[in-house]
């Protein structure tokens, strides 16, 4: 138990894991991710492809090579944070709690990201004016109008889809606008203005990305916590925080 604790208590472990994840992530950007085996075979040859697949570098961020060190980091950070807290409560450390807020935020971020990754569902639906899209939970969208706004020189400025939402039990919410960077939230789902195309007969079609996941509020809380922690650690008294 003691060796478990001292192994996971060490900042040195954190630094090793950080540097490993950095190096491995770099490698993952240099090898195209998520491709078919034939792609790697033609590009790298048989031996290299076998190596790539055996260590999971074809889909690195979902592989053991990433997830296991990330899990180790999670345990490491938890043990460090608890240990710091205990020392603080015992009065044996008085170095400010800014980093602890950052670390807590980071832990919550990892939890939220895992929740999000595990529960994410999405679908891309194309629809023209007048079309109806059925959504889970008894919701549906009726596409009222499609608007493509341009700048004076004709380049795209905005794509907006206006929909009438019908909820379960027939509850109506008409005239809701979905634009790029302005998603619509409906019944636990988020709907994004994702793409635009013209169908064969010249009519405009909007591509709406419909997404559902759990973890969004957790992730946002984590971001807030990390931001607060950063300000407290580094910006409250700039330059002289020894942390």
């Amino acid at each position, binding site marked *: 138990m003691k060796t478990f604790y001292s192994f996971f208590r060490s*900042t*040195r472990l*954190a*630094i090793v894991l*950080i*540097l490993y*994840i*950095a190096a491995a*992530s*770099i490698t*993952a*950007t*240099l090898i195209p*991710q998520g491709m078919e085996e034939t792609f790697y075979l033609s590009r790298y040859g048989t031996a290299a492809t076998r190596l790539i697949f055996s260590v999971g570098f074809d889909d690195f*961020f979902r592989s053991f090579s990433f997830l296991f060190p990330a899990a180790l980091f999670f345990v490491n950070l938890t043990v460090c944070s608890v240990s710091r807290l205990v020392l603080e409560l015992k009065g044996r450390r008085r170095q400010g709690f800014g980093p602890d807020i950052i670390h807590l935020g980071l832990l919550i971020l990892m939890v939220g*990201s895992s929740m*999000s990754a595990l529960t994410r569902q*999405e679908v891309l639906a194309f629809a023209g004016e007048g079309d109806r899209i059925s959504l889970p939970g008894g919701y549906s969208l009726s596409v009222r109008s499609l608007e493509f706004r341009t*700048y004076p020189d004709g*380049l*795209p*400025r*905005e*794509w907006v889809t206006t929909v009438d939402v019908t909820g379960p039990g027939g509850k109506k919410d008409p005239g809701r606008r979905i*634009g*790029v*960077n*302005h*998603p619509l939230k409906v019944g636990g789902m*988020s709907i*994004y203005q*994702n793409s635009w195309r013209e169908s064969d007969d010249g009519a405009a079609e909007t591509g709406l*990305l419909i*997404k559902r996941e759990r973890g*969004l509020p957790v*992730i*946002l809380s984590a*971001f807030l916590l*990390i*931001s607060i922690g*950063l*300000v407290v*650690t*580094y*910006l409250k008294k*700039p*330059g002289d*925080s020894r*942390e």
Partner: protein
Amino acid sequence: MTLPAAAMVILLGIVVLQCIAIFRRSSSPDGISPWLLLSAGVLLLGVTIYRSILIRFIAVTNTWESLIFLAALITLVLFVLCIRRGGGLPPYIILGGSLFAMAFLALSSSPITSPELRPPIPALRSHWLVLHVVCSFIGEAFFTVSFVAAVVRLLSPGDEGRRTRAEGIMYSAVAIGYPFFTMGALIFGAVWAEYAWGTFWSWDPKETWALVTWLIYTAFLHLRHIGKIRGILAVVLLMVGFVFMIFTFFGVNFLLSGLHSYG
């Protein structure tokens, strides 16, 4: 004369002043360099403000605008650090930082980028995007100064005083830049991505390299915390971090493919 050209002239003047100070081995900082830095920074910020008014959006959404803005921030960061430290910044640091500002300015008038006035495409029309760029760049300006300090530290093995001062600046520049970079590059970037595409993070090359850059500076700060950051290791980490930062900014756009080819 255009605003960027005027700033370039001022920066040249600052470089000359630092060279004179170094040659003369002056111990006291000249009183004029900080104000020249401020002038150059204000002129360059003026470019950003002027363009923002013209396109009705904060002008930080393409390569040209980014380079001007980064050069502005470097000069302003140098100014702030000069004022903060009672004795000003050592001439080598001002020299190095100004050279970087000049380099980014020079890049802006190179063929890789165009000053053509273009308001942003729909995906970039977001307050979060603006926060993302502005805060990242503030962080990156500080990281640039820390890189300069690391170079000075590397090239001063004999001079104890210069070494110590360089190490102090290496750390304080990272300490101020880190929160800005973390919030800008990672947090605001992720929030923007969520609003624009429905996903906080997709491990695309630019995002991944930004994270890698962040990890290097995180490692630096933690090594320092446990007291394991003697001399050359600190220098190496900051140099690697800076190279990765530059690669994230430019290299990814031009050498790797993904979502992020805006600027």
